[in-house]
């Protein structure tokens, strides 16, 4: 149901590495990002040009988003959130190149990302508030705490599930729609769908990063 020929899957089969194509493409994205970071930071100048210019725009954009949604406290988590944003964005966009498959169109990659957000949220919560972080789950009235606790736990477990399925469904769905259009009318008709793919890739990156920010900001604030 995906691209008929995937370069890295072919490479994986030739080299007999049995890790799955999504892992191969995730590695590829990592190499790409590391190379980009190296290129951008190789010679940092006061007046940026070339790669440094590009990366400064991206970084300052994410920085603005974090200060808008999380306040000044959120800047401590900038490295993690920016990594999520860059990794997901490049992973999503790579699917538009023929022969490449977005690693985010696979449940395993997305589950890994979403579980990282889930675990980090609670680690940050406990780090910030100590044991009184549990008050977040108790609700305002102590007598109702056992009831609220169960509901809150279900709500928190639903977060990684919805994060995973949202990203997976969007990317995989787009991939399938593109393939069906290519099967029906291969001439020019898939082009608007690919244009929409760029939009979907950007919006899903935005949504994932924003939701991660909101979850972490929720763990940072005082229990009500």
């Amino acid at each position, binding site marked *: 149901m995906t691209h008929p020929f995937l370069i890295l899957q072919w490479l994986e089969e030739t080299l007999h590495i049995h890790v799955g194509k999504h892992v191969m493409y995730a590695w590829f994205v990592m190499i790409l990002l590391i190379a980009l970071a190296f290129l951008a930071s190789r010679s940092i100048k006061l007046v940026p040009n070339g790669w440094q210019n590009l990366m400064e725009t991206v970084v300052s954009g994410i920085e603005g988003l974090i200060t*808008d949604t999380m306040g000044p406290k959120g800047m401590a988590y900038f490295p993690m959130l920016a990594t999520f944003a860059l990794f997901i964005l490049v992973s999503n966009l790579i699917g538009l190149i023929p022969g490449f498959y977005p690693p985010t169109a696979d449940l395993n990659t997305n589950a890994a990302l979403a579980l990282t957000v889930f675990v980090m949220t609670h680690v940050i919560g406990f780090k910030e508030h100590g044991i009184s972080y549990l008050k977040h789950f108790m609700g305002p009235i102590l007598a109702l705490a056992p009831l609220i606790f169960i509901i809150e736990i279900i709500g928190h477990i639903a977060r990684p599930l919805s994060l995973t399925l949202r990203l997976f*469904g*969007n990317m*995989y*769905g787009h991939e399938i729609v593109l393939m069906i259009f290519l099967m029906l009318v291969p001439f020019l008709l898939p082009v608007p769908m690919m244009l929409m793919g760029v939009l979907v890739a950007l919006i899903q990156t*935005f949504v994932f990063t*924003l*939701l991660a920010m*909101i979850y972490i900001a929720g763990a940072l604030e005082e229990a009500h």
Partner: protein
Amino acid sequence: MEFFAWCMIAAGIGMGLGSFGTGIGQGLAIKSACEGVARNPGASGKILTTMMIGLAMVESLAIYVFVVAMIILFANPFTDKVVELLVK
């Protein structure tokens, strides 16, 4: 064989119903956001962010339906059993 025909029908109708409700919901959200921006263009940045989160939440309903439809079509847990029964 009827089993697979019903699977197709279930996936199609399910996806249709799911996107029907989601479409109405997202339309309402965008309508309100447009009204908000028209009244106060200065707040468009904040409204856009909030609307995006809301849309993502609403959209996940359709995405759940899509995942279920894909499970029905491509990873149906009962396929082996049905094929086994058909062979008998």
